[in-house]
């Protein structure tokens, strides 16, 4: 009730501001227009003339995303009636700009969930175009583009397809060969079928490499376990915090179980790595070594790092030798790796969905997916044929290992919750804040988890 009144007042304020600024800008527009060279504004809205159509692809302004600009010339040659324009924003401003563009009637045609908000958020805000009819009309078949069928299902809600997977990161283990050699520990396996590779064995190995010293420069830890986002971690041990229906209804869980004994036990196991086994660093230590969002593995202070396969991208610059290994078995026979599959989406307000779909199809072809690996500096393709090129991309790492780890991860993989659950950015922020006192050792899980359970329920209802 209070919220409603607030938003009403807000709307009134907005309306006033709009009128005032309209009046102000209206009388002053001409005065200074001559001062600056006006650009080619409005060019994007002239799609109608001569059947020439311009579509825009909205993405993050970073080299591993904007490389698509280099793919445009060939596409335009093959499709003379379609022009592609790349619109971009920094990561932090990605969502704000997208919302503004849509609200301002300048909606991009193609994008992905590259900002804080995941697919479910876009879906529940009704921003996405249902691609089912387009796919049928076009005769698009996933297997023609070597997209595994189970990946196509990720962005299908109630039988309707809303996104075409384009890149796939998995969770894997990177290990520091130098540290393994120094401690005389044998390298972990890359084969997911190796039954001896378990969470407990990982802890044993980690103990042999951990060295806690007063001298921060000498301190090193055996393992850093950053599997998926915080709310998803219980799944690794076989506990499911969200109800089954979440995965079929567009990401709105009817029930959550963050205060159940299984979930609490799972988190306990993870925090034990830090406080009981003392083989993992505290978050303060990690921050002091690697900065706010940095990874202490990069500094050569961690033996094994379980995290997203994007950590591989910097591999060629690490000042030590690395290898890749399977994520050990932790008690869940079905899930051991989190998948981070990025789809290409067409927005509902797109004026040229057909042409946008042509562009998406082009990006999915084996040839373009292979080219994209090099151009992007190592983005993992969804196209299994192009993936062979990806496996060979990293200096000093056996391509066979990368392949095994990727294939095992897909077999034992589950799509990251951050793409699948509604209002996820709020859930994730809340998790980071609420777990903070546990990470610093000031509170116990038993105190915190009921609070989290309550807050998750509230956020989902929003």
């Amino acid at each position, binding site marked *: 009730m209070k919220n409603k009144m607030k938003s009403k007042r*807000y709307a009134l*304020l*907005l309306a006033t*501001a*709009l009128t005032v*600024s*309209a009046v*102000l*800008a209206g009388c*002053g*527009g001409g*005065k*200074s*227009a001559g*001062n*600056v060279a*006006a*650009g*080619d*504004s*409005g060019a994007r809205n002239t799609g109608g003339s001569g059947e020439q159509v311009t579509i825009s692809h909205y993405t993050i*302004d*970073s*080299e*591993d*995303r904007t490389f698509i600009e280099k793919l445009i010339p060939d596409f335009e040659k093959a499709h003379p009636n379609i022009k592609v*324009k790349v*619109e*971009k*924003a*920094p*990561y*932090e*401003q990605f969502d*704000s*700009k997208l919302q*503004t*563009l849509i*609200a*301002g*009637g*300048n909606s991009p045609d193609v994008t992905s969930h590259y900002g804080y908000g995941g697919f479910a958020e876009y879906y529940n805000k009704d921003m996405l175009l249902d691609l089912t009819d387009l796919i049928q009309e076009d005769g698009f078949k996933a297997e023609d583009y070597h997209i595994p069928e189970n990946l196509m299902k990720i962005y299908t809600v109630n039988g309707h397809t809303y996104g075409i997977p384009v890149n796939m*990161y998995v969770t894997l283990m990177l290990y520091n060969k130098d540290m393994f050699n120094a401690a005389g520990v044998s390298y972990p396996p890359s084969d997911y079928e190796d039954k001896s590779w378990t969470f407990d064995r990982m802890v044993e190995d980690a103990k042999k490499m951990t060295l806690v010293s007063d001298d*921060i*420069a000498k301190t090193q830890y055996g393992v850093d376990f950053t599997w998926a986002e915080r709310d998803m971690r219980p799944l690794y041990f076989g506990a499911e915090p969200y109800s089954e229906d979440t995965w079929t209804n567009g990401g709105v869980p009817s029930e959550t179980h963050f205060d159940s004994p299984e979930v609490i036990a799972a988190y306990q196991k993870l925090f034990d790595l830090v406080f009981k086994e003392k083989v993992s660093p505290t978050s303060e230590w990690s921050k002091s*070594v*690697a900065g706010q969002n940095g990874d*202490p593995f*990069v*500094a*050569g*202070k961690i033996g094994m790092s379980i995290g*997203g396969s*994007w950590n591989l*991208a*910097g591999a060629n*610059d*690490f*000042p030590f030798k690395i290898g890749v290994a399977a994520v050990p078995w932790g008690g869940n026979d079905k899930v051991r790796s989190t998948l981070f599959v990025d789809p290409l989406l067409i927005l509902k307000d797109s004026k040229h969905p057909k042409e946008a779909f042509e562009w998406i199809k082009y990006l999915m072809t084996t040839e373009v997916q292979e080219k994209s690996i090099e151009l992007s*500096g190592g983005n993992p393709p969804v196209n299994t044929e192009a993936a062979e090129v990806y496996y060979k991309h990293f200096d000093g790492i056996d391509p066979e290992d990368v392949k095994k780890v990727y294939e095992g991860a897909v077999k034992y993989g589950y799509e990251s919750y951050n793409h699948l659950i509604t209002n996820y950015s709020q859930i994730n922020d809340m998790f980071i804040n609420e777990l903070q006192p546990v990470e610093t050792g000031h509170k116990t899980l038993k105190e915190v988890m009921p609070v989290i359970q309550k807050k998750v329920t509230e956020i989902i209802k929003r």
Partner: protein
Amino acid sequence: MSTVKATRPLDPSPRLRRRIKPVKIASFTALLVTTFLMLLPLFFMVSTSLKSKREMLKFPPTFLPESWALRNYVDIFETLQFGTLYKNSLIIAGFSVFGTLLSSALVAYGFARYRGRGNNFWFILLLSTMMLPYPAIMIPQFVLFSKMQWIDTFLPLIVPAFFGSAYNIFLLRQFFSTLPEELFDAGRIDGCGELRMWRTIALPLSAPALATVAIFAFIYSWNDLLTPVLYLSSSDKFTLPVGMASLTSSRFRIPPWHLLMVASVLAMVPIVTLFAIAQKQFVEGIVLTGIK
């Protein structure tokens, strides 16, 4: 100032001098320590900007670069279109400063010199615009400018500056009200119009306040990230903050901190220059207007 000096004994007694000394030493030490602490981040910025990519990842970090990677200062022009970004930022900031000075000084003059009906009401209304956060007007403003076909031009970043800013108007109004009425009376007797009095009396006497406003307006425009991100879409129109944000935008790559530091060092140059030029005026402006 001179009168204060004259009342002081010219030669303080030796006892007094001795008493002052330790205090002086202590305060100088304190000043030195804080100066050092303040300069440390700056030092690391410059030092990191001269490190190689590999050295940048080292822990513990090196204090001075092992090998001086002066190449970074060339590389930045290849990684980003640094020259273009710099030029764009300068153009936008230049016009913004001019626009802010012109409009804010005019409006502030009005508020300071005239006692009209509802004077306070309008002034409070003006000040209340400071409480409207940018995200609240973001979308309506975007709709407006997009209807005017201003998207992907510098206009949405410059034109609003020509309509005054509440904070700067407030600052200038405070300063204008301290100007003695007699000056304006004299001007009026000599046949000065209001606009001419503004130009030839008020403005020249307000150099400190104007310098302050100029610095504020420049820094605001120079650092602004969200507005250019929203309105600009071609890479050759991007501004410095947009380009620099792109260096840390990949969630999947280690950010090239060394290049980011190069960009930061170079981005700091105009602000430091401007501050060096206007420093004397700036400090005076803050003291005299009572604004901090």
